């Protein structure tokens, strides 16, 4: 199992101990999950019997935007500060 690659995609920095432990546990879980194969699945397709309830595409003001800003870990003049992405 490519544990480093999975961790990179999942964006979680793991210690070496965590990597070792997780690799062993994930292998055990996948071995256990193989029992699904005994169901001899065919062409079943999962489809939902639920229906979307659409609403009018209309802008509604959110009254408490200051409460959103208060949760920002780093803020300057009401805007969230984020690390460089380019």
């Amino acid at each position, binding site marked *: *199992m490519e*544990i480093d690659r*999975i*961790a*990179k*995609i*999942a*964006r*979680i*920095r*793991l*210690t070496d101990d*965590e990597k070792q432990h*997780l690799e062993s*546990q*994930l292998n*055990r*879980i*996948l071995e*256990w*999950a193989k*029992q*699904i*194969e*005994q*169901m001899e*699945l*065919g062409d*079943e*397709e*999962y*489809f*939902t*019997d*639920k*229906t*979307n*309830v*659409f*609403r009018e595409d209309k802008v509604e003001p*959110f009254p*408490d*935007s200051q*409460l*959103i800003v*208060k*949760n*920002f*870990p*780093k803020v300057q003049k009401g805007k*969230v500060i*984020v*690390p*460089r*992405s380019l």
Partner: protein
Amino acid sequence: MYSETVLAMGRKDLQEHIAGQYDSIEKNKKFNAFITVNKGADKPTIAIKDNLTVRGMRATSSSKIIDNYIAPYNATAVSRLTNLSIIGKTALDAFGTGSTGSNSDYGPVRNPHDEERVAGGSSAGNGVALALDMCDFALGTDTYGSLRSPSSFCGVVGLRPSYGLVSRYGLMDLSMSLDTIGPMAHDVYGVSYILSMITGQDSHDCLTEKSKKIDYHKELGIEAKRLTMIVLEENGSNLVDKKVAKTVEGAVNRLEQAGVKKVVARLPDLDKSIPMYYLGMAAEFASAMQKFDGLRYGPREDGYELDEVISKTRGRYLNAEIKRRVMLGTFVTMKEQQSKWYAAAIKARARLKQEINRVMAKGDVLITPTMPVMPWKIKEVMDDPLKNYAMDLFSGLAPIIGGPALSVPCGTIGRLPVGLQIGAKRFDELKCLQLGYLFEGLK
């Protein structure tokens, strides 16, 4: 009678009653039931699971990755509660990841009947808060047993409603194709009373369905002979503890003697529902957890570039079980693995849905144990995922078909309660509640 009595209390009696609840919260801190306590309750009280938002209150979902998050809006189900006081926010397995209550970053939630044992989860704090008289009602969530498991282990009542009956707006999701919000209480009347308030279509949740408004608590009475219960041959699996099976059989016998008709059915692939769930849920959970990146809320680790900051923040603040599930979900949805794992899980879910619906067609309600085992000691389950996952044997019957399921106490083994699970077809909550109410009256 508990709920009806509380709802009819005069002001003075209610004040004394609520003071007793605050005393119990203070005295029983070691059970780790509450994360936030709200002072000043003056109406019958309700506890809210901490993965649901209440405007202006902290909402941690029992995870340090949003330790200091203050919710800017109410969950729809919360905003529909009337004439109740929110007494506090309760602990859970972080983001709903567990059936024990031990996976809270604020300390393991302890069983109210034996503090060395698990309380059930993930709505563990609610179960304890009700059992130790810290609140009158509670609002929990149920993806794959999360409010029925603690109801069973703590000896209280909990209802998972049908998918689409109650809006999930304001719920921090675990697995969006299965998540529901539902009530817990001291009795069937209590859960019915809360359910009557919180149902209905919501423009903020596109999967809520237009349904006839029902006052469930006013329609609980039914003649036993009008109901047919389905029971599974050999309890559905050899994974069931023999003492639990015997207690549930005793409950079935009492219902039969009262006049409820009984039919027997087989569900041979029930055991396979557990790995099916863990593969599918992990895929949805890995996606749901992407928003917890330290950018807009929660603590943030230092770093120069975006990926570095996000990876370090998640590495530090996500606990072991969350990492395990996110890693599993990431793996099973990788392009080269998808068809072997995620697609197989989706197909298995479709097959199981057909099988369960075939069984449900034989009667009105499906009776099983809520939990196949008694609550383990907290230390026994901390690092054994497969042992934990096996607790979900009967939990999937309702979520797979999108139907409701109720857990009611049906006896004790030693000091520990056993729960009876009553499932029904989608949107047939009333049948679950009527049979549960009938059963309560037989005691």
